[in-house]
């Protein structure tokens, strides 16, 4: 559940879903879409022509707005939607029927529009073709807004729009006015508004559920689009912390270009690999911009969360194919659906301890159809990109999990062979090391897989017994904890002994000093949010491998998190 946490003396925090990355601090501007309250007045015969003219002008205006959005839109799924909306506004039947209502029934233009749309929306519902009714309603609302001379309210430059839900048109409209962030009560990661927000680089948090009822106009907010958090009325300390993060982020971006082009080598020539963690096709752009060597973690949960038939094999296939085609010839590590925990699914089951419950591979093995579909889609995609696909199993805690997936993978491939479809025999199967028992028994697990990747976010949570979503104990959650380093060391040695490739794809890898420490430990394959790549690369390129090893030795001798933090903050001014 998305909840509002409030500490006694601290900040009020709204939890939602990350919609578009980035952090922004600004004042809220609440937007409530004016529901078209249609006038019921009838007009005199002398007024009819005026109403017809008004309608015509409104149509023209809305069509112009949509055409402009279409011209500026690179995202194909949004462009499709806008093309459809343009056809609606140009619809000759709609046009004819509205005019008839005005002429025959002396209706005002807005009442006529409302009445005609009402009929169409009702038939769509009857015929169970409602999937697009939201987009059609958006057009009706816009027409009526224009007829009422109502535009999106003016917002101050830097405002953060807080709304129940926004249409693409509204997102673009507010962005044009200078809005810098978005908070929506509803909307999923694949909603058109979210896609547009990402392409416009507007930090966005979705699904806050009750944001509009908790936030008032001009309230100061911090929108953390990376973590899906909105901090309401932040205190001085929090503001300072976030200002620092924003500055750091800006600095990194400005330096990124230069660093990006140099090879991935330490000062003394030891190579390492930096890859990108991504979830959406649109993130490939940033991955390319920051020179990621392929995708080290492809999250697939958004497929699951998409409602529009995205679960079927062909739709998934096209998603994987896009990613593989765009990152050739680099490898792509596809993580199987890692649902559960904080990623709420369609089911209504509420668990007492969701993070210790039915999630990741535990859920997938119970929903075998879903897993089989995903494996089939991945295998089909892999056929055209031989040797590049790696499948990563989330939340593994027993060897049985691996064996079962391997068996299902084998049957998926066999079935494809029987259907005459070529199969890539070299697909690798690996596991996320995120449950402490797997990290402890790393040698054993390594014997059964082709590769391993340490997910430090969950590993930290489980090792330190800290729910990372719980603000009250958030200070206890620190991925740099000495025990994490000890455990990573154990996994690293096991992987080396068994000759199994090992990478780190958790947030720890995106922290420059920690990344140095990981490479010093011999883990030379790191994957992270693309925007973190330049800073990590800079840290690694400006040191010799001996310096990295020395840092690793030191961190393995620490006893407390304070000692780790001291060591890191004093280390070579990174």
């Amino acid at each position, binding site marked *: 559940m998305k909840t509002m946490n409030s500490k006694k003396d601290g900040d009020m925090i709204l939890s939602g879903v990350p919609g578009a990355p980035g952090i922004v601090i600004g004042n809220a501007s609440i937007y409530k879409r004016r529901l078209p309250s249609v006038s019921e007045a009838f007009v005199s015969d002398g007024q009819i022509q005026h109403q017809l003219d008004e309608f015509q002008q409104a149509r023209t205006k809305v069509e112009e707005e949509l055409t402009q959005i279409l011209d500026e839109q690179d995202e194909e799924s949004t462009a*499709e*939607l806008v*093309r*459809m909306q*343009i*056809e*609606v506004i*140009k*619809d*000759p*039947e*709609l046009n004819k029927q509205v005019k008839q209502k005005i002429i025959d029934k002396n209706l005002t233009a807005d009442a006529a529009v409302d009445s005609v749309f009402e009929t*169409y929306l009702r*038939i*769509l519902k009857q*015929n*169970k*073709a409602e*999937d*697009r009714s939201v*987009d*059609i309603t958006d057009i009706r609302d816009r027409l009526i807004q224009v007829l009422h001379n109502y535009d999106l309210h003016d917002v101050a430059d830097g405002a953060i729009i807080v709304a129940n839900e926004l249409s693409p048109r509204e997102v673009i409209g507010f962005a044009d006015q200078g809005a810098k962030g978005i908070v929506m009560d509803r909307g999923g990661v694949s909603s058109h508004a979210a896609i547009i927000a990402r392409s416009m680089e507007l930090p966005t948090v979705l699904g806050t559920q009750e944001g509009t009822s908790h936030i008032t106009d001009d309230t100061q907010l911090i929108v953390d689009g990376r973590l899906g958090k909105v901090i309401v009325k932040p205190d001085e300390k929090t503001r300072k912390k976030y200002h620092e993060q924003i500055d750091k982020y800006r600095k990194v971006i400005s330096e990124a270009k230069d660093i990006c082009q140099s090879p991935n080598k330490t000062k003394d020539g030891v190579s390492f690999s930096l890859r990108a963690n991504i979830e959406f096709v649109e993130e490939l752009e940033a991955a390319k911009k920051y020179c990621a060597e392929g995708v080290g973690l492809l999250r697939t949960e958004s497929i699951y969360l998409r409602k529009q*038939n995205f679960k079927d094999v*062909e739709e998934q*296939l*096209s998603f994987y194919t896009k990613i593989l085609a765009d990152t050739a010839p680099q490898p792509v590590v596809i993580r199987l659906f890692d649902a559960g925990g904080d990623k709420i699914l369609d089911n209504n089951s509420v668990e007492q301890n969701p993070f210790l419950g039915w999630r990741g591979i535990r859920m997938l093995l119970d929903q075998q159809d879903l897993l089989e579909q995903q494996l089939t889609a991945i295998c*089909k995609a892999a056929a055209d990109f031989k040797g590049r696909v790696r499948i990563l199993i989330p939340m593994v805690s027993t060897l049985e999990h691996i064996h079962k997936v391997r068996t299902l993978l084998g049957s998926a491939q066999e079935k494809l062979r029987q*259907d*005459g*479809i070529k199969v890539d025999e070299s697909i690798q199967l690996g596991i996320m090391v995120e449950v402490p028992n797997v990290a402890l028994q790393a040698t054993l697990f390594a014997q059964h897989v082709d590769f391993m990747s340490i997910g430090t976010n969950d590993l930290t949570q489980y090792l330190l017994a800290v729910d990372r979503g719980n603000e009250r104990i958030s200070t206890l959650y620190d991925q740099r904890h000495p025990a994490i380093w000890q455990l990573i060391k154990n996994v690293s040695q096991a992987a080396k002994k068994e000759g199994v490739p090992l990478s780190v794809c958790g947030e720890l890898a995106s922290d420059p000093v920690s990344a140095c420490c990981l490479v010093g430990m011999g883990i030379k394959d790191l994957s992270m949010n693309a925007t973190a790549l330049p800073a990590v690369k800079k840290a690694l390129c400006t040191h010799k491998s001996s310096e990295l090893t020395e840092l690793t030795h030191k961190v393995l001798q620490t006893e407390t998190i304070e000692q780790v933090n001291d060591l890191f903050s004093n280390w070579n001014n990174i």
Partner: protein
Amino acid sequence: MIKKKVTIVNDAGLHARPAAAMVKLASNYESDFYIHMYGYKVNGKSILGVMTLAAEKGAELELEVDGDDEEEALEAIIELIDSGFGEVYEDDEQ
């Protein structure tokens, strides 16, 4: 006036994107264009009309085109429908 029966072959049926594509294509021609389906008749140049048909894969439509460029228009529309609106995957054809 000419009429012709066609079957929707793409998986998604005449949903928003194909409907928009068909309406847009039809609007390039002078001729009137109507679609008959299970007793309904809608203007084929009206996206709202076409969408309310909710024609699924396998649905049979009768296209009716009337005007100076009717043959050209009909041919173009049928070609678009038969092509599955660019939606048919290669693997399905095997």
